[in-house]
């Protein structure tokens, strides 16, 4: 169903390949139709993803994948909308949209290829680059603390917060599928090696540290989730860290809720004529 392109602009060994394939698996496992799926992406290496898979694409501006994605979903609630971009795009330039998208809790899936670096612009620190890591711009190392998107999302009240790893396609496919199925804003932060520019957080670095949340981990337990969210360093949990149903935006907004998809409504100037009475 979902066809992948043979040609990408990615480097050999890049984690993006695993994410692309897992996305395809997830979409297929959910039996979605390509023309009813839209990916809104920004600019960066991660943001090129929708070019390589057969779904609709809004490949907009760096940092702005979220607002476009939100509006696409609002305009046509029959579509499955995925917002997909890099850590720089999602948490740096797009940080304000990120936090406010969580508040809105619209039914979109936010996939972040978190390689802890700016890939496309050749290796500057991203908001998730580790303290003191040297980069192509921070020659003496990064001086500010990295953002923990998992705790931020949980702190802001997100209903679905997951972390996965590009190196485990089975896990990642399943997490993405669940995120898409979740009714509300769902964050999937994906550990993704960038062999070209991040020589610290390599495949092996991640592989050595990740562990899977146990079967009996209860993602609806907020206290446990907060504690898990803080785990980073020697051991990094992957899986659905927090999950709870919250009022989803479409089910709250009468204009979208009580109508067919807005794109399906016919337009007629005469409909507006009645409002003229306001000015008489």
């Amino acid at each position, binding site marked *: 169903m979902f066809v992948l392109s043979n040609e990408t602009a990615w480097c050999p060994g890049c984690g993006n390949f695993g994410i692309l394939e897992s996305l395809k698996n997830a979409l297929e496992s959910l039996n979605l139709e390509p023309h009813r799926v839209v990916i809104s992406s920004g600019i960066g290496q991660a943001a090129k993803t929708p070019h390589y898979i057969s779904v609709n694409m*809004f490949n907009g501006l760096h940092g*702005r994948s979220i*607002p476009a994605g939100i509006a696409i979903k609002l305009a*046509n609630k029959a579509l499955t909308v995925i917002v997909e971009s890099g850590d720089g795009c999602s948490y740096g330039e797009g940080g304000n949209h990120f936090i406010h998208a969580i508040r809105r809790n619209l039914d979109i899936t936010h996939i972040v290829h978190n390689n802890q670096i700016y890939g496309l612009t050749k290796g500057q620190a991203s908001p998730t680059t580790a303290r003191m890591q040297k980069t192509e711009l921070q020659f003496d190392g990064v001086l500010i603390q990295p953002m923990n998107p998992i705790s931020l999302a949980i702190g802001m009240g997100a209903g679905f917060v997951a972390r996965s790893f590009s190196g485990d396609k089975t896990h990642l496919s399943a997490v993405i599928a669940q995120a898409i199925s979740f009714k509300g804003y769902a964050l999937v932060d994906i550990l993704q090696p960038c062999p070209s520019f991040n020589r610290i957080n390599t495949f092996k670095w991640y592989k050595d540290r990740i562990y899977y949340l146990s079967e009996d981990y209860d993602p609806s337990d907020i206290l446990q989730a907060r504690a898990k969210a803080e785990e980073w360093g020697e051991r990094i949990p992957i899986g659905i860290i927090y999950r709870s149903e919250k009022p989803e935006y479409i089910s709250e907004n009468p204009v979208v809720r009580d109508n067919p998809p807005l794109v399906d409504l016919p*337009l007629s*100037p005469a409909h507006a*004529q009645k409002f*003229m009475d306001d000015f008489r």
Partner: protein
Amino acid sequence: MDYNILLGGAAGQGVETMGHILAKTLKKLGFYVFLHRDYMSRIRGGHNFVQIRFSNQPIFAHADDLTVIIALNLETASLHYARLVEQSRIIAVEDGDKINTGYGSKIITLPIKQIVQKTGNRRVSGTAAVACALRLFNMPLAPLLEQLKDFFSEEVLLANKTAAEEGYTAAQPLFASNLPNPWENIFINGNEAIAMGALAAGCRFYAGYPMTPSTSIITYLSKKSRQATILVEQAEDEIAVINMALGASFAGLRAMVGSSGGGFSLMVEGVSLAGMTETPVVIVVSQRPGPATGFPTRTEQGELGFVIHSGHGEFPRMVIALRHPEDAFCQTVRAFNIAEKYQVPVFLLTDQYLADYTMTIKPFDFSSISIDRHFSYDAPIEQYLRYKLTESGISPRIIPGKIPGQLVYLDSDEHDEAGHITESAAVRKAMVDKRLKKGEALRSELVEPEYIGSENPEVLLIAWGSTYGPVKESVLLLNARSLPLGALIFGDIWPLPTKELVRLAQNARKIVNLEQNATGQLAALVRQQAMITCHHSLLKYDGRQWSKDEIVDRIMKEVW
């Protein structure tokens, strides 16, 4: 007859409400009414006022000369006293003792203490004053009492009615008023007219972030959102606003945004995105004096050059300067049609004056409106190419999600016909040519500026947008004095229609640009686009709108 009442006080004293009550009363009586707002960027205190001009003949702007001042505080009287005409009155609601004796017999002090005592309400003085004004013009009280019902809750209605009756008896008729012939009209401001235009055009998505003087557009639309099925979103910032609108438009909705200069500044990257991705969008830029925060509640035409050049890179766009409420309605509808036909951003330039003045006009004509969406999903599609190269530069547009097997790829990078990233020099060139071709085609839509004045003007004024009303009236006044003058007032302003301008300029002795800014942005545009240099500039940039009187004055002094 042509009268002008100023009603002023501090923010929070009900200047707005009382002004609208008075204006609506006059409207109901059949007058042509023009209400102009002057307010400060604060919630309480300071000095705000409205001016209500009315006549039994059509009027198009506010005026400087005052017939009556309704002074909700003492400052109002002293600030505006100088503008009173010979036969005129000040209606004051403060204690008589405190009032400047210099006002002499012009002053009418309302017995506010008694009225407050009688009504048990301290906030009714404005109502009493308005009623008093009606009496001065020898008008009936009943229509006012009727209006009060629309504005006040049950609890305070009676007190206001009583105050009105008291105020009404506090003066004697002074000014002659012939009640006009009844005519069907609406009383609407520029922002409401834009909002109505959007609803008529089938806009289903409006995103915004509050910013004076654009806010009342989103406010009105939000009020109607359920009834009109229009999604109205307040976003976290203006960057989200424009990117949301583009997302909605991509998905198939007619989408609009609005802000003023500062908020619009944050949108210009999105404007460029609209240009590159060929996504239709209508953008209202409601001007106020800049730079930066500037004069939030005042007026200026400072963004013409900025809007025409906004966004990085080169791409076609259309800019329409709105001239008056009826124009605002019609052009808004037209903007949506043009945006979708050419798949370009279309700008509506307005400003605080037009946003906020309310006037009586004929109800809008809905029967003549057509909605042309220019979707091509009826045509059989082999492989859909979002950016297919065509003769006209316009590619077929489809709604994503509607046709199995067909995908829409929208791309902000330079792209090939399918919408995928390219590095090819040839494809780049083809795509630039394609986009610019649309700009050429768009010229066929241009409407020439409106001309008002003598057939062979010796002096040709050129103006744009919201100065329409004052300029029109001043031209009529000067023509009445037999001065051979005329004014071309631009609505469509980018691309600039130049035919009429070139024709009239040929025989004009003097060409004068009249603008509400300090640098003469229209004059610069006309030099650039028509190679015509204005001989004189009339510029005003103190945040207060040109009035007809000021225009006449400065033309007589500087131009003639």
